[in-house]
């Protein structure tokens, strides 16, 4: 049975408007697009207002006067829009870049760079131990990692006869990356397929009442 709930009807109409993008640029898609934009911006503002209220409450209540500094810095950022006073925004921008990059660089060196290096090295122990299929797998994983990193050497050239084999190594690294992309394209399709199922099922089950 078709749902009597007006919110379900609104959802159904918006879903179909959004799907009309598949047909091409049209008014229904524009309606969905602008609804989406407006709701998200509205939501961002509501969130922002509540967040600011929470964060600056200690200042308002007189518990933490130091918060006056971020308040001033926050207001300074808005001066970005006036060409003449844009330099005022440079200081809060510098804080944002400095703090954010500081947090990032420590996480990158720990997990992405050294964490991975250590994980690869530890795996060396399991190459010749246990199930041969796993051993071969580990060997492939380790070898692929190293050759693919080799591909990312940008300023080294291997033109001379002695260093020529290294160039083949680099080419192999490129194919390793292609294999990885191929595998992930294939596995990810499952997710995209499932997302379509969930959108269509919402229409068919919740709105039209089938199944």
């Amino acid at each position, binding site marked *: 049975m078709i749902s009597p709930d007006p919110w379900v009807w609104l959802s159904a109409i918006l879903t179909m408007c959004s799907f009309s993008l598949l047909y091409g640029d049209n008014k229904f898609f524009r309606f969905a697009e602008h609804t989406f934009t407006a709701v998200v911006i509205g939501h961002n503002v509501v969130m922002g207002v509540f967040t600011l209220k929470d964060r600056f409450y200690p200042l308002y209540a007189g518990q933490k006067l130091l918060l006056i500094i971020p308040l001033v810095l*926050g207001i300074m950022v808005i001066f970005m829009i006036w060409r003449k006073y844009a330099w005022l925004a440079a200081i809060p921008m510098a804080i944002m870049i400095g703090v954010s*990059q500081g947090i990032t660089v420590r996480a990158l060196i720990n997990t992405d*760079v050294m964490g991975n290096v250590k994980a690869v090295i530890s795996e060396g122990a399991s190459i010749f131990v246990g199930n041969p299929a796993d051993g071969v797998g580990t060997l492939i994983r380790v070898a692929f990692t190293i050759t693919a990193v080799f591909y990312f050497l940008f300023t080294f050239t291997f033109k001379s006869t002695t260093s020529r084999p290294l160039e083949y190594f680099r080419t192999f690294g490129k194919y390793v990356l292609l294999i990885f992309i191929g595998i992930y394209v294939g596995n990810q399709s499952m997710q995209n397929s499932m997302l379509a199922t*969930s959108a269509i099922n919402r229409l068919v089950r919740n709105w039209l009442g089938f199944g």
Partner: protein
Amino acid sequence: MSTMDSISRFVRTRITRIVIVITLLSAVAGYFFSSPEINNLNAELNLWNMNIITFTLFIGLITIYFSYSKSVSQRSTNWPFRLYALVLIIVWIVMGLYSGLYSDMYQTAFLSTKITLHIAILGQLIFFYLSAMYRTFRVKTLRTGILVIFALAMVVLNSPITLSNWSAADQISYWLLNNPGMGGARAVVLASGVGGVVLALRILMGLEKGALRATGG
């Protein structure tokens, strides 16, 4: 006027550099060494950073106001929708501030609009995926050949028909994901991690041309 110019230049060239060096180093030092003072300083800087970021919302609102109101006043393409969006933004803000974020009314309205549209656009990904695949997965070179073979292998191995008829399919697909696939994935993470570290160091030393221009006004 000239005094302001020189202040502006001083702020942009000197002060911002000093601020970046102090904040970046304190965030790094605060992780590798802990002491009550460094921890406090970092917690405070993080808080400042989060608060400043919240204020950038107003810049977003200003840009959207300028571009939408201009579109409406010049009657450019799709201007009625821009007007509708401006009105809906205001209605939504009033509704949200009045009812609160966790109220049932806000939940229902959010689920039936934002979440619905989100699900709908995610639902279209498979359409884009298949048409992009139809266009690009043509075996002209060895490169596309490799891409196509592995993608096809994964799709077939993950398919319920294959899985229910061939018991090894499941193990093979996991093996492919966890070994050859993971090798490349890990190299991407590792190498781009190095690139990221060096980029952050470039910012620290003032050598990065692009992002630092954001502080140049």
